[in-house]
């Protein structure tokens, strides 16, 4: 089941140091890279069908193409390492075990889009991972892999780590850029057409850690090799993080299209303590929940999860056993979403709090019949009336909990 394209070096001791990393193939793609034109690199990535692994699933090559060839301004690459969606803990494995893979990916990607400076925006809590990454960057500079001329080639690239300070919304790419510009992490209004992002008015690409770490394999082995894995619309592999009530939680690299049941029961050893499965949140906490009876024929890819009314998101699965109280789960998530709403749009700032307070009331045994409907009404107020997708996601998940586990709420409501 497991395929190791990105996670190949995870089990090699000290593969986070440059000598060991090089021994095991890191930076080998650069030789090939500099023989290709930036356009050819982008084409290769485009053909591979590589999709963003931070939750949105946008096609990476298409994103890179948004930088106009006529552009004369400086171009920037920004790596989104602001991981922190409940259930999502995959990118830290790359930072911990193979930071040189990320740097190699950054070099390939920056070369393709014509960037000479890349920023890695990493969540403030990840101090250990930040230090490890900084050591790797320092090693790369000292070895001439980063800096004014990369491995003697006429191409300059600098990489700077930027430390976040505890705001979930900064994982949203425009909020991340606002934060990088030294402001509050408020998402920006979306443009009408397709555009790159803008960092101080300069065209910028924002990509997730795992996405960028997938690029060296594509350059080395070619797009065809990457497409050998996965499905038509979801080529390649993804790092799936499984947490909650399974015997062996952890991060596993799997080709898209793997059966969810096999992952839970075979790879992760089934439900803890011989209990029965109740529900699964498939892709980080901001996607719709699935009941145990709904996962029978689900495969882990964009198509299958969409067809089953949920999303692949970040691939962070949270598994829950039969003893879990769904209203309590929903309350926990709403505390999270209320706390993490950036506060820019009133429906989100207030709405997440309303739902949180109503859930508290219901759990305290003081719920009334109207409360169920009030939450649904609040969801209508959250959906489509704000700048970013934070509030609509919250509305969709709330609706899925209420609909799929209605009986559990009814028991609590007098």
């Amino acid at each position, binding site marked *: 089941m497991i395929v190791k394209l990105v996670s190949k070096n995870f089990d090699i001791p000290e593969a986070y140091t440059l000598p060991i990393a090089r021994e095991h193939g890191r930076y080998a793609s650069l030789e090939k890279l500099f023989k290709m034109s930036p356009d050819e690199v982008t084409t290769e990535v485009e053909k591979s069908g590589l999709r963003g692994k931070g939750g949105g699933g946008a096609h990476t090559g298409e994103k890179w193409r948004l930088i106009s060839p006529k552009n004369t301004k400086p171009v920037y690459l920004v790596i989104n390492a602001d991981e922190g969606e409940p*259930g*999502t803990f995959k990118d830290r494995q790359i930072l911990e075990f193979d930071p040189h893979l990320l740097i190699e990916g950054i070099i390939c990607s920056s070369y393709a889009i014509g960037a000479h400076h890349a920023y890695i925006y990493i969540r403030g809590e990840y101090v250990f991972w930040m230090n490890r990454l900084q050591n790797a960057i320092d090693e790369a500079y000292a070895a001439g892999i980063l800096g004014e001329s990369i491995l003697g080639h006429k191409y300059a690239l600098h990489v700077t780590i930027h430390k976040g300070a505890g705001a*979930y919304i900064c994982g949203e790419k425009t909020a991340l850029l606002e934060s990088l510009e*030294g402001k509050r992490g408020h998402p920006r209004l979306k443009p009408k057409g397709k555009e790159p992002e803008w960092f101080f008015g300069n065209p910028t690409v924002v990509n997730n850690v795992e996405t960028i770490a997938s690029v060296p394999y594509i350059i080395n082995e070619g797009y065809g090799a990457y497409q050998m894995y996965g499905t038509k619309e979801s080529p390649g592999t993804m790092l799936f993080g*499984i947490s909650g009530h399974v015997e062996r*939680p952890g991060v596993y690299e799997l080709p898209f299209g793997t059966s969810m049941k096999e992952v839970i029961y075979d790879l992760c050893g089934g439900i803890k303590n011989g209990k029965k499965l109740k529900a699964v949140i498939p892709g980080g*906490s901001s996607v719709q929940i699935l009941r145990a009876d709904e996962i029978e024929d689900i495969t882990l890819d964009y198509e299958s999860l969409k067809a089953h009314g949920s999303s692949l998101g970040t691939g962070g699965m*949270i598994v829950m056993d039969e003893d879990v109280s769904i209203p309590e789960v929903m309350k926990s*998530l709403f505390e999270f979403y209320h706390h993490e709403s950036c506060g820019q749009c009133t429906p989100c700032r207030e709405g997440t709090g309303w739902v949180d307070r109503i859930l508290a009331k219901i759990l305290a045994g003081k719920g009334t019949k109207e409360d169920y409907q009030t939450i649904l009404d609040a969801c209508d107020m959250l959906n489509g009336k704000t700048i970013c997708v934070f509030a609509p996601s919250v509305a969709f998940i709330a609706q899925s909990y209420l609909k799929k586990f209605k009986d559990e709420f009814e028991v609590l409501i007098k």
Partner: protein
Amino acid sequence: MSTFSFNHINEEKFTALLERYPDKSSLMLPSLWMVQYQEGWISLDAMQYLAKKLECSAMDVYSVASFYTMFLLQPIGTYHLQLCKTLSCMLAGSKTMQEHLQERLGIRAGETSKDGKFTLSLVECLGSCGTSPCMRLNDDYIENLTVEKLDALLEELSHDR
């Protein structure tokens, strides 16, 4: 006039960072971090100092500093215990960990012990769901928490200093 100023090391860091961004205003978060590591927290005084340095208003600095949860706008204890309470950690028993910590330390979440040694905070997702429950002790992660593990840790810390 603010009485705060960067120490020698931070002053050098600040100058070096200026080279790495297209605009000075990007230094806002790094500067706030430098203040926090230098002083343990971020005072209004320090914010006025940063405003001058970053060529913005003190209100701009305050607006940013107060937005991000990790910036401390008041002093805290020597050991900051930040226990994750979000879903995966909740499913793995973070509530039990919280109750145990509160009992052992004699404080509630959000409070600092009388001797100024421990501050207990509840935080949202730490990105450690596969090794839950999880807690941060200052800058370090402590994962797969158990009551026994917490006891051993508190024992060790109480002998410190």
